[in-house]
Each structure stands twice: as structure tokens, then as C-alpha cells.
């Protein structure tokens, strides 16, 4: 695997050997790809009415995902043009510790106007330095409940091991999500 700079000094992404693009570029392309989203939500449509999110049909889920990805991308584009200091504080507003925000999603999920189920997963190497390991459309309370989100946990672990092997102190690495 490779580590690819995204913008500024503090945001990087993993490029897996079996993917054409790094994870950051791949995710934003995927989340604005109608064919991918239609197949994804058709396959996971039972999760849309399971009660975790407000009941929503496949069509609306696809369109809301596109809207959210577009807004999220715009926010990141704006961040990319800021000074180094601005990028640092901006990233800390975007990413939250993985387990804390899982709890937060449970309490906030239903009150949100938009179905904010897009997740970007990252390892924080030190304050304000993030390495994106992947991302997912998370429709269940925990990541372990679905194969595609569980796979993201496995990938985070694989990247953590890769970084430790290359001399990064394991005590400084923490799991985060957007």
C-alpha cells in the first residue's frame, strides 16, 4: 500500500494495490456514481426501513447521498484553499474519534434532516495529521453488523500495522471517522 498526500501537510490517504485510486478520490467518485448507489441501496434496502434511520425509499436514499457527498466535497474543497492553520483546525472539526461518534450517531441520527450516513475512516497519527484508510455508507448502528463496514475496520487495522512496521509509534495512532 502507498500513502498519498491529499492537500496540505496534514491530510493523506491510503492507496491500496488493488485499487486504481487512493481512498479519498475513490470514495468521492463512488458516492456520486448513480449506478453504484442504485445497486448499493437496492441491496441494502432493508436497512433503510429497519428503524435506525427514518424510513426512506431507495430513490430518495440515492439522491440524498449525492446531495450529502456534494456538500461534503464542497466543504473539503474550501478547506483545501485555507492556510495551514485553517486546514489543521478544519480537519479536527470534521473528524471525530470512531467510538465516540458511533454513540453520537445513535442519538442524533433520527433528528437529522439529511441521512448523514457517509463515513470516512482515518487514523490520526498525531494531533491534526490524518491518514484516510477508507469509507462507507453506514446504515447500521455498529460497523460489525455489515460486511462492507466490517471490512473497513479490518482495513484500518491493516493500515495501523503497516504504519507500526514503518516506525510510527503505536501509542500515537488513533481511529477516527468523519
Amino acid at each position, binding site marked *: 500500500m502507498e500513502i498519498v*498526500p491529499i*492537500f496540505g501537510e496534514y491530510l493523506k490517504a491510503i492507496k491500496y494495490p488493488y485499487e486504481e485510486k487512493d481512498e479519498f478520490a475513490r470514495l468521492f467518485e463512488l458516492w456520486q*456514481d*448513480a449506478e453504484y448507489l*442504485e445497486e448499493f441501496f437496492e441491496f441494502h434496502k432493508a436497512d433503510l426501513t429497519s428503524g435506525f434511520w427514518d424510513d426512506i425509499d431507495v430513490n430518495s436514499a440515492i439522491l440524498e447521498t*449525492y446531495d450529502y457527498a*456534494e456538500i461534503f*466535497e464542497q466543504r*473539503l474543497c474550501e478547506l483545501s484553499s485555507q492556510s495551514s492553520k485553517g486546514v489543521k483546525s478544519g480537519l479536527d472539526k470534521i473528524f471525530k474519534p470512531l467510538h465516540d461518534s458511533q454513540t453520537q450517531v445513535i442519538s442524533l441520527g433520527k433528528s437529522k434532516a439529511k441521512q448523514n450516513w457517509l463515513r470516512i475512516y482515518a487514523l490520526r497519527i498525531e494531533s491534526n495529521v490524518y491518514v484516510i484508510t477508507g469509507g462507507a455508507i453506514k446504515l447500521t448502528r455498529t460497523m460489525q453488523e455489515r460486511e462492507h463496514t466490517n471490512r473497513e475496520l479490518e482495513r484500518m487495522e491493516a493500515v495501523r500495522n503497516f*504504519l507500526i512496521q514503518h516506525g510510527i509509534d503505536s501509542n500515537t495512532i488513533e481511529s477516527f471517522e468523519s
Partner: protein
Amino acid sequence: MTSALDKLKQLESKETSSWLEEATVRQANKAWRRLSFQIAVRILREIRMQNPVNGMTQKVLAEAMGVSPQYVNKVVKGKENLTLETISKIEVILGTRFIEIIGVASAKVENVEPASGESVCRRDAQVSLKKTIQLTEYFEYEPEYQPNGTYGY
């Protein structure tokens, strides 16, 4: 002592992510890309719905349009700046409408005096001209979907 960031920089690839460049293009084209995406979703849902009935697939659609399956795949990803001709062609083949012109459809043409006995012929219906014609009569026409595998008018 080397910081974690310095160690990370040593591991970094020389190439930067393609994201920023791609995101800038997406943002610059967001108006038409949104429409293209919405049309793509409609096409995909229609194909999924029709498939058990008439075997509609992206490949069948491509053949009926006289284009390559790769082109149709680009269309259904929502990344193609579609022409009106292409949209109309897909509408006819799938027997449904994807776009409508807001305002025009509800506009009224007043005081149209038809020639004696004149009627407007359409392939599925004859609409007699009246003194007041609602244009919606024309714009609401949808090509009929034929479950036996034929499409269009």
C-alpha cells in the same frame, strides 16, 4: 527525534491524490452533473423495473439506441453531459419521461381558431382542436411502453 509526521512523509508517494483536481471539475460542473445524475437514477430504476418483464438491460438499451454499451454505462453513472436528443431517445425506448419544461406545460394558448373539421393527429390519439388549447395535452404525451419487447410510439 523524528516526529510521526516526518516518518509519515518519508513513506509518502511522490504523486498527490487526484481528488482535488477531480473535485474542482465536479464543483465547476455541478449544475448539469446534478441533472445528469437524476436522469441516470431514473434510467437505472426503469431498467430494474422493466427487466423481469421484457429483459431490459443496459446492453439492450445500447442496442436500441445504436450506441456502445460503454456509452450507456457512462450515462447511467450520471457523468455524461446529455443532449436533448439522447434524453428523448432514451425516453422513447424506455417508454417514460425524464424531463419536463416547467411553466410551458401549463401555459394556455388562447383564441386558436381551427379550420373546419381540423384535428391534430398523433400516433396514439387524435386531439380535436378547441378554441382554447392547453399545451399540456401535447406535453403530457408519453410514448407507450410495450411489454412485448417493442418500444416507443
